[in-house]
């Protein structure tokens, strides 16, 4: 069964070119993609993740608020009982913040400039690996 991925933009940042390109590329690669769009609250993302039974939540954040918003989203997912859903983050992310995002619960981080093909490969690998208990 193909992996189900939720793509969303938490916070107020409206730059959705990257999120939409990723959503399309994942769909073309065989993922089932739920695209939630911009300006989503972490609680909404968690509720949809639960309802749609997704394995991966992809967040796109270009506003610099990635650390706080990732923390909040991970917290909302766990609060919704989704302990095994993986969270991945892309966007305008300075190198110094990659470790901070991983500490916040991100399974992978894709800073600006990540080739789309390597992002897809990375998600394919994540979706087929047995769940590490998080």
């Amino acid at each position: 069964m193909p992996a189900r991925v939720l793509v969303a933009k938490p916070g107020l940042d409206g730059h959705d070119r990257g999120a939409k390109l990723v959503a399309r590329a994942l769909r073309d690669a065989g993922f089932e993609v739920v695209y939630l769009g911009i300006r989503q609250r972490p609680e909404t993302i968690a509720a949809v993740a639960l309802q749609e039974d997704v394995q991966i939540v992809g967040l796109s954040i270009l506003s610099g608020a990635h650390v706080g918003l990732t923390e909040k989203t991970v917290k909302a997912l766990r609060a919704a009982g989704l302990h095994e859903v993986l969270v991945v983050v892309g966007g305008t992310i300075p190198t110094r913040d990659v470790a901070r995002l991983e500490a916040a619960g991100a399974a992978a981080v894709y800073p600006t400039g990540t080739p789309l093909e390597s992002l897809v490969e990375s998600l394919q690998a994540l979706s087929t690996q047995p769940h590490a208990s998080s």
Partner: protein
Amino acid sequence: MDGSVRSEAGIPLRASYGPEDLPAPEPIPPPGAFPFTRGNFPDGYRGRRWTIRQYSGFGTPEESNARYRYLLDQGGTGLSVALDLPTQCGYDSDHPEVEEEVGRVGVALDTLADVEVLFDQIPLDAISTSFTINGTAAIILAFYVAAAEKRGVDGANLRGTIQNDILKEYVSRGTWIWPPRPSLRLIADTIEFCAEEVPRFNAISVAGAHFRDAGANAVQEMAFTLMDGITYCDEVIERGRMTIDEFAPQVSFFFYTHGDFFEEIAKYRAGRRRWARIVRERYGALDDRSCMFRVGCVAGGASLYAPQAQNNVMRVAYEALASVLGGVQSMFTAAWDEPFALPSEDSATLALRTQQVLEYETGVARVADPLGGSYYVEALTDEVEARVVEIMDDLERRGGMVKAVEDGHLHRLIADEAFRVQQAVSSGEREIVGVNRFRTDESPPEVEGYELDEAGRARQLERLAEVKGSRSAADVAATLGSLRKAAATNETNLMPLLVDCASAYCTLGEMVAVLKDEWGEFVQPTVF
């Protein structure tokens, strides 16, 4: 693709162009003459240089004020205020859901008190100030006017622009608040208010830039933007209170200049000609100044790349050159480290110097429209214009821009084009140095960037609390009450009421909440 050589927007190009490609039968009118293909002014940039307007603003009003004074000291000639997302989307800094975003991509403005700090020691009657603000544009304008009133600056001497272009927000930038109909009403209110009260302030900067950065090509960018311009002008004209000549001079435009050098030049020349004709033919303008297409631009954005990021310095320089050859009135050159973070002072200064070298050393601005009459440039201008008209006609047939925004048609067109470009880059058909040509193994640069100061947010919240504690509760209630009453009907211009609210130190969030109660909120179609 059929293997033919094409421009970035897909226009097929021949190996050379000749006299047969010049528009026939009439000669091209000179610069400064209708329809302004060759520029708005007979003497090009001699009479008036382009404004160097570096987009900037972050953290607290104090920090941004210091950066503005630095930029003005260094030869900047206008300010361009970047606002944080809560301010753009209508939330005060103390709203519980926006704490990560306060002061992040721009400065936070909650009340008039913040605006007073932001422009401290900056003479409001001697500079021009551009605000990249849309959803809350009317409120920010109200703050600015109220600040000027308080300082005793005559409204007639205020110069600047609010972006105030909501239609593209629904599609590509995302800082909407209310649905299209009431938003258009508020925009028409600001246009009327500016014409009457602050006649040197541009009420709207119709912005294609964000369509472009979201994925549209140069031709789509121009077509969508002119359609938006028509939608706003229709709104004002339909009210029957103003003629086109009374407000058109205060409508300006804003675009991205990306990498296809001649296509960008042709885009600006074609846009100027098309808009001039629209204003004269559709609206019956009598004054040629109403027909002028006043253009600001930004070089950078999605045309910049993360790998070998310092190459972005060259990209921005070529884009800046194309913009000047295209005849723009103001320009922002982005910093090379834009793909990673807000610019450091060093990278921001280098971006400013890029324009200054162009202006003072290359001599490109000595003669108006130096490429006028070039077989290629004239032919490409004609072709871009023809394709722009085709897209506009199609959108009109489909029921206009508001409909295209509401039914997701525009979202689809832009996402399709972004995807096409992405595939062209992936396949190597579109060649990008450092990305799919001449790649090197390198780790991303350790950019200095800008690190948000947590203490700054605390100061912002403190000032907001102070304002709330010291203002007159009765004035706040009274001014917000008048706003609510007027918003419920379509009879009163809301701008003077918003200025009253601002002067009473109502917060931005309070004004937005009142209007949300009356007008509701927009829901975006999620097309990808």
